[in-house]
């Protein structure tokens, strides 16, 4: 049971990095990929149908953490308090920008929302870097400080950007596509850079997770015995539904949508 609980946690965490990492990376690059209002809208449309389904992977990760490792969750989250405040604020600002962009008046409102998406995406990526710095240096119970944390945060943010860029080359058309393509380069198949960054993104939380004393910190067997099988039953269904979404919106975007 304990191993299965750890596997579930790893699965949802890696899922968030691979899936949401793509839309956060694209969000970070929005002002560069899209130089005008319609272009930026196109860039946001490239991940719009997915971001709602992507971000819940992180919610699910915390859900598994609180369900299967409740005491550890409390310690980890309260000790990393400032990092999480930054992460949540970035996340909220980003989402608010995405959702409100098409609902308010005028080009200035939309430019403001685009700025919120970009800043929010950067904040989320950098906060993750900050959090990962603490985990990777083996001190999960104190927010990382010093040069290492800055460098890790920047490196993680760069990886998010690269992942987003790969996603953009697979989803966009027109000038934003050209810009992304120019940076990715023309070596190899278009999906290859994305696959590479996806592997790196997926590996990142797994590597960082080794710093957590997961084994031995699980919930009581009575809880685990019910919770883990229940989650294992629904997880394939969740994955199927998400795969259906990716299939439905698999075509490149050439025009705007709801955002």
């Amino acid at each position, binding site marked *: 049971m304990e191993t299965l609980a750890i596997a579930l946690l790893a699965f949802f965490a890696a899922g968030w990095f691979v899936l949401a990492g793509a839309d956060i990376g694209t969000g970070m690059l929005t002002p560069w990929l899209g130089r005008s209002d319609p272009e930026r809208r196109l860039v946001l449309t490239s991940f719009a*149908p997915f971001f709602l389904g992507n971000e819940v992977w992180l919610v699910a990760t915390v859900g598994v953490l609180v369900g299967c490792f409740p005491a550890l*969750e*409390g310690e980890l989250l309260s000790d990393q308090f*400032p990092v999480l405040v930054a992460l949540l604020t970035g996340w909220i600002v980003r989402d608010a920008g995405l959702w409100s962009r098409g609902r308010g008046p005028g080009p200035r409102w939309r430019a403001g929302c685009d700025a919120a998406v970009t800043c929010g995406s950067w904040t989320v990526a950098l906060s993750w870097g900050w959090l990962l710095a603490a985990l990777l240096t083996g001190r999960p119970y104190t927010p990382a400080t010093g040069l290492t944390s800055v460098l890790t945060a920047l490196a993680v943010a760069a990886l998010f950007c690269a992942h987003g860029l790969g996603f953009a080359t697979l989803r966009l058309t027109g000038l934003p596509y050209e810009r992304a393509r120019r940076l990715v380069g023309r070596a190899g198949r278009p999906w290859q850079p994305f696959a590479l960054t996806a592997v790196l993104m997926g590996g990142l939380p797994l590597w960082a997770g080794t710093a957590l004393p997961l084994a031995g910190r699980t919930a009581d067997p009575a809880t685990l015995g019910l919770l883990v099988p229940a989650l294992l039953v629904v997880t394939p269904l969740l994955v199927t539904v998400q795969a259906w979404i990716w299939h439905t919106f698999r075509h490149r975007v050439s025009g705007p949508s709801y955002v």
Partner: protein
Amino acid sequence: MNQDVLDLARLQFALTAGGHFLFVALTLGLATVVAVLQTKATFGRKPLDARMVRFWGQLYVINYAVGIVTGLVMEFQFGMAWSGLTHEAGNVLGASLAVETIVAFFVESTFLGLWIFGWNRLNRWAHLAAIWIVVLTAYLSAYWILVSNGFLNHPVGYGSENGELVLDDPIAVLTNPSALLAFGHIVAGALLTAGFFMAGVSAYHLFRRSPEWEFFGRSLRIGVFLSAPALMAAAVFGGVQFAVLDSFQPMKSAVFSGKAAEIARVQAELTERFGPGDYVPSEAWTRGGALLMLISFALMMYLCFAGVILAAFKKAVFRFRLWHLVLMAAVPLPYIAMISGWVFRESGRQPWVVYGLLRTEDAVSDLSPGTMRLSLTVFTTVFVLLAVLNAWLLTRHARRGPVESGLGHDDRPAEARDTAPDPADTLPAPRY
């Protein structure tokens, strides 16, 4: 434990949970209405029905979007500010939160994305199924959250092992009367909120003598005829909760009735059971919350009673402008009732976070007052801005009435509507 940190953490939890709760109230109710409307539109294929789905769906999506981000803070807050809670009671509480996020919320969000962006792309039956799954998982989400909350208010089905609570009887936890009654009460309250909201928005347009009289006349009737039974159901579930309060939380009941002798008696009883301590919750918040809830209930009851009669007459629906004004002014009433009822429920159980088992002061994380103050400032600012944004966007779109753009707008280029080719075909051929 630092008193400042405790107060700040409580204030932050109250503000974020309360803020989130108000968004949820409308989301849960309006989603149900939209799903029913869409069912009618899908079967009947009448353009008016389809336009109603899009208009009310747009308002629902705006409210949902802002509500969801407030929920993110909630999810993290248990661990961040209340690590004592996950430490002591995590074996019970954590599991229901985990199931909520994965079984309910995950599915809800995924299908909502499909519903919003899949308009005109999905087969119309698949699209209808998507909104119903969103609605059902939203209810499921509310249920699991109330299982957690019910456990905090009235812990059942647990055992104790090495000073930690362990899950003993899962069925008892899932059928906790404190959870089930609150669930019924809140679902009814959510439908009530949606009913008053629909009636208020429709009344605005009818008051302005909008050319969309048929659209809003019908919406107003839906709102009024939904509010009345929802109010009755909320009252029944509320009444039953009052009835069991004496045995579940005698102190809350004593403070509500305001009899000093009764409060002293329960205080002595609890001191005997749990050792010395102050077991009297804030009387102002507890009794104030309950009274405000009952007053808004009384007002809504008169309005619903009059509304059901008036809505039966076509002339009143389209021409009775004073009633239109009253309906517009009444939109906040269910919100006031919801939030004050919640204040009554949650402040009345203090000093306990898990009733009879864990005190609030023992559950707060070991944080510095500075950190707590910073996060309170950040989250309060963000939440106030979100509430303003939501109110502004809702008002803006509600006032605009049904328009062509926005949710459900067919944004595919005209020639591509029948056969949608992959736009990648038009790209310049990549050179390898």
